[in-house]
């Protein structure tokens, strides 16, 4: 399997002039297609920064981030947005659903920023909601759904563009154990279907679901 994502000597420095703080220091990382990886570390370890770099939300201060062999370290904001739209699917701890729109519209949200036709978008959203077992909840608003259900809508939203990588930041952090297990079961199933899944977490229980764990302490991968 080829390397889908590669970090080469990547560092992220804040306040480089006065008191430089390395959020990530000389990170080298390779994630292959179809892998299920957990990035683990205590809070403040730099795992969020690492996730932002991997998710093309941020660019490194030095080093290279290669996605499908293409260096994305120096891309503009517009170009990064396009890559995120096509290749990355985010799942957040706090779900981040838009409260005033239905589950179906929330799922279809990323398609607004693509060229896909309106009719096809609805079909895709329905199909994707079905994949996370929320077929009948399409017309519900987020506040009519349980936490687990909301997170499943968020996963559907991440999946709808058929991204290369699903990137989940503490996806079970706001959920009870049972809902958390359901969510992790979905990730496991998606991975079995061939999706590359990266989960950022500080819980080793969650990390266990992954096939590979990357530990980060004080900005360095150990």
């Amino acid at each position: 399997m080829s390397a889908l994502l590669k970090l080469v000597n990547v560092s992220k420095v804040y306040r480089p002039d006065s008191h430089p703080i390395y959020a990530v220091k000389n990170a080298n990382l390779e994630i292959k297609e179809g892998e299920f990886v957990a990035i683990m570390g205590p809070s403040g370890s730099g795992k969020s920064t690492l996730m932002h770099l991997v998710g093309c939300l941020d660019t490194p201060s030095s080093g290279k981030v290669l996605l499908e062999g293409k260096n994305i370290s120096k891309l503009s904001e517009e170009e990064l947005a396009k890559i995120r739209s096509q290749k990355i699917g985010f799942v957040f701890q706090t779900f981040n659903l838009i409260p005033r729109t239905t589950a179906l519209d929330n799922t279809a949200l990323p398609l607004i920023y693509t060229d896909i036709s309106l009719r096809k978008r609805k079909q895709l959203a329905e199909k994707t909601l079905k994949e996370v077992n929320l077929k009948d909840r399409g017309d519900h608003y987020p506040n009519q759904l349980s936490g687990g259900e909301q997170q499943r809508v968020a996963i559907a939203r991440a999946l709808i563009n058929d991204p290369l990588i699903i990137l989940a930041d503490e996806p079970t952090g706001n959920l009870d154990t049972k809902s958390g297990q359901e969510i992790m079961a979905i990730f496991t199933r998606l991975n079995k279907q061939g999706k590359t899944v990266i989960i950022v977490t500080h819980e080793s229980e969650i990390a266990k679901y992954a096939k590979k764990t990357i530990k980060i302490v004080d900005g360095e991968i150990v």
Partner: protein
Amino acid sequence: MDLIEVTKVSLEALKANKTRSGLTMLGIVIGVTSVILLTSIGSGLKTYITKQLEGLGSNAVWVFPGELNMNAGGGGEGVPGAGVAASKFTFDHIKQLEGESRTIKAVMAYTENNGMMRYKGKSLITQIAGVGPDYQEIRDQKVVDGSFFTRSQYNSAKKVAVLGKTAAEDLFGQEDPIGKKFTISDQRYIILGILEEKGAMGSIDMDKQVIIPATTAMHQFDMEYIQSLWVQSQDSESVPQTKEEIETILLKTLDDEEFSVLDTKSVLGVVSSILGVLTAALSGIAAISLVVGGIGIMNIMLVSVTERTREIGLRKAIGATPKNILTQFIVEAIVLSFVGGFIGILLGVGGALLVGRFFTTTITPWSIGLAFFVSSLVGVIFGAAPAYKASKLNPIDALRYE
């Protein structure tokens, strides 16, 4: 992401805060409504006055005492000072004008005074106009009942009167007034005829007037000079020449600043310039409320951007470009001002139609177009800053925002 889509998203966002959106729009609604309403009333007034003046005939020329400096389209300078200067016109002037001019068809003395009329214990204070025997032709108002006074009655200053329709009804009720005697300030007059209905002319109700010979009026009201002269030119083409002739003739005996010669055109010019300035000033004040409304929109958009920081972060994370976000918030502001503008236009036009039932209003298409354009522009201008702020948000920070 096309414009229809962005508009849909904006409408959803605005619907989520109905009260707030409504109140924000109110500023624009009030601004647009008042601009349309005020311009309609302004141009209605102009149309009304123009019509009234045109009713005086296109070949009418007036000579007023004093310097009026009423030049057509004279801008703000030509503020008239009518009635301030004392008149120096005499019946000799009329004779000179009639004798020496080639384009004048008729000259008529005109005076205006208020007087108390009495008939059988009933009394009525009304306007008493002293005119010449050519009145019917010059003023284009005919006697419908009885007759007008003759030139000889005029020359010998007989105490005869012709009544306006309303004046006759007020004083005589069902009685036929012709041949009856009544008094004006204890002087006895005989009624010769009743004039046709003419309606109001500016603030003066023509039908309430009582017409007597100007010669008689000089004695009745103890006047030395004639208040003004009404001249009829041969036709509308010779009006400029008539004006010149009048000036030349009157300058022989009067000073330049002792009289002014006016025609319908010059009066119209002054009236429209005054009304134009007035309408513009009022609309300007109304337009200020549009700006205030715009600031309201900006304020609410800034609040909205802050409130929806996480949403902006999310949208960016899932692929929205800064341009997408910018467009979304600008469109939201435009939708607010556009809908506000639309409601304002409906209310403004409705209000103008309502006022139009009591008073002339003219709804001008340009004021509607302008209101529409300005309200949308307000949306773009005042939506730009909040939208720019939103587009520049860092997605990582925005997602972390609590």
